[in-house]
């Protein structure tokens, strides 16, 4: 079914499994264990991650909401939401606002009737998991990670917000041991920290329901990435703890793209965006996903 893999050579030749098959190496683990305590300090060492989470949530929300089918086949004509066949910006403002409000309400309706089951792979302290769990159109979120300390930090922080109580669970577990399938699976900032990224991606994609989404982010393996994430981020500006990144684990956008194409009939790369961190501003989307950090939205079409 799936041919090849991301960065074929390394994945295929190295067969020894040190931890779990889809897990991270021990040195990665001890690094993240050490970070667990400060994970939720929004002004602490993980501030940049908290800021990135804002962009992740925009990316996820926009993709899920804009790709909804607003008028399903069986809808009565009088119940149809008007979708102008041209740019709504051309319309007078009040009309434009009404059309957009109408569409937004329909989206809420559709999402409200089919709430999503979410899996956050490599949830860390739960920054993304908590945000996903607070969304009104999310039914439940399961966060998994292999670092016991961060899972403990995540569980402890969850108690600080009563609205998460029934929607969010955390498990110290690896991806391949999960039997369930999900509407949304997230793999944010994970692939560059694991030894077998293709394996992880494959395991994740296999657990996405038809029509469901896989969102991921990782980093292109180029000079810009080394300069921004390792040289500047870790060593000069100290905005990321030293040792967070390893350059040869970075994966180019094109590698995932072509891998997806080879395995293409089931999955579609719907959206990808580059992003960059600007000190004193935060993260910002760029128009070039082939340089530095990038996000991807992959939808299962069948």
């Amino acid at each position, binding site marked *: 079914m799936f041919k090849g893999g991301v960065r074929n050579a390394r994945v295929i030749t190295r067969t020894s499994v040190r931890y779990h098959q889809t897990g991270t190496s021990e040195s990665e683990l001890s690094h993240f264990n050490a970070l667990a305590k400060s994970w939720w300090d929004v*002004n602490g060492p993980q501030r940049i991650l908290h800021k990135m*989470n804002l962009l992740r949530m925009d990316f996820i*929300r926009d993709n899920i909401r804009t790709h909804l089918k607003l008028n399903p086949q069986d809808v009565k004509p009088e119940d149809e939401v008007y979708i102008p066949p041209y740019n709504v910006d051309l319309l007078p403002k009040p009309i434009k606002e009404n059309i957009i409000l109408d569409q*937004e309400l329909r989206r*809420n309706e559709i999402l409200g009737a089919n709430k999503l089951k979410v899996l956050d792979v490599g949830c860390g302290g739960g920054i993304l998991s908590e*945000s*996903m769990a*607070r969304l009104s159109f999310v039914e439940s979120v399961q966060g998994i990670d292999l670092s016991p300390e961060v899972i403990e930090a995540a569980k402890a922080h969850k108690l600080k*917000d*009563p609205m998460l109580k029934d929607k969010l669970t955390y498990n110290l577990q690896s991806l391949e041991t999960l039997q369930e399938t999900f509407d949304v699976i997230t793999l944010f900032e994970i692939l560059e920290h694991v030894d077998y990224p293709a394996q992880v991606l494959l395991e994740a994609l296999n657990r996405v329901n038809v029509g469901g989404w896989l969102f991921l982010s990782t980093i292109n393996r180029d000079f810009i990435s080394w300069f921004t994430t390792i040289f500047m981020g870790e060593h000069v500006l100290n905005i990321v703890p030293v040792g967070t990144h390893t350059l040869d684990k970075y994966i180019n956008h094109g590698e995932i793209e072509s891998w997806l194409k080879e395995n293409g009939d089931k999955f579609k790369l719907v959206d990808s965006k580059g992003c960059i961190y600007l000190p004193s501003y935060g993260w910002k989307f760029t128009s070039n996903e082939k340089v530095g950090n990038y996000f991807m939205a992959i939808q299962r079409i069948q």
Partner: protein
Amino acid sequence: MLTKRFLHSFRDVVVVGGGPAGLSILTALKNSPKTSHLECSLIEGSHITKIKEFDDPNYTNRVISLTTKSIKFMQKIGNWNYIDQERIKFYDNLFVVDSQDKDANISFTNDSIDYNPMGAMCEILNVQKSLLLRLDDINSTTENKAEIIENVKVEDIVNPPLNEELDWPIIKLSNGDTIQTRLLIGADGYNSPVRKYAGIESRGWQYDSFGIVSTLTLTTEDFNNVGYQRFLSTGPLGVLPLTDNNATLVWSTKAWLSKILKSVDDDMFKVLVNAALRLDEVDLNYVYKKLEVDPKDTSVIDDINWRLEEMENKKEPSSFWDDDNEIPEVETLLPGSRAMFPLKMSHADTYVAPRVALVGDAAHTIHPLAGQGLNMGQTDVSILIETIEKGIDRGLDIGSTLTLEPYVSNAWPMNHAILGVCDKLHKLFGNDFTPIVAIRGLGMKVFNNLTPIKDMLVKSLSV
């Protein structure tokens, strides 16, 4: 442990203060489809809902100028429909003169730009009433109602013990209740207890000045929708139109003068307003000196009238004063409407802290000379609601500083600029040192002819 928890009730948002800013943020939260699910309460020390029954035909003395921008926001959150339209007055011209240089004046109009009108004079009570009615309207259509807890004071705001999981602030009320809230919004005025709880520093100063307000009737009905403001060295004096021949007075004066103005009776005060709108500062100072000795000295009235007549006779056929720019003349003073308050400027270092946001006077107090106080509060509310909506979209905890930070970066700099400009204007015009008078006169003349820049200012203040 369990019993202790049940002592508090829980909310998503608690607003402290039922002024226009507090009621606006409550209405905005309940109006937005993104935030209407939040459980919100407002705490107010007075019997605020009785404002809904207010229908005294006389104008109240707390009148503000609503900018077009504020009106748009009120339309958005829906309370504009509940504004008593018979009690507001649109005006489209503001005429500003310098007492020490007759030719130095600025005429703010919006003729050259397509904004019409410039603003609306409106009682604060009218704004509050419209918000309360709008909230009733919203509450009638939903189960999750906005709650107003009135006649109740905030006794204390404390943090929960460190070993508790929930780090939400606990508000202790004078009726013995305690509420624990995810987000606490301070709309509680200049001495904001919420700001003090959050440990946010507010910086500023008292001017050696007082503002005097009063409701007036003028001899002429409706002076062409023109607001009139005269900068005296003791502070600016504004007469702003209300409906028919009603008007409202905002007179900022130095402390020594405010003492005199407070001690005179209504008849004398009326004459003094007319004098201060017209006479030279030398004449005014003479009059003030006489009144300082005896505030009941009625010969002063004759003296003023004589001086005004003299002035009228000397008036050149037509300098700037054509019919459109008639100086308003006060006919009567609404008894009991005269009130005085100290003027100050203050600005909080930030508007947010963990689980806290400040709006309105809790965040900034401003010199009333440009009538920006309430409008700045409306802008705060409009930015804060957008910030909270964005936080909800992103699944954030709305009490987290991560959610609230954009509110500060979007609201603080503009407020600081407005505060700074008004402070500088106050200081610039409170001066009678000749070179400064000359330079500011030149500046005003130049400014009056720089239509694009003037439009920009009108736009930024009113739209």
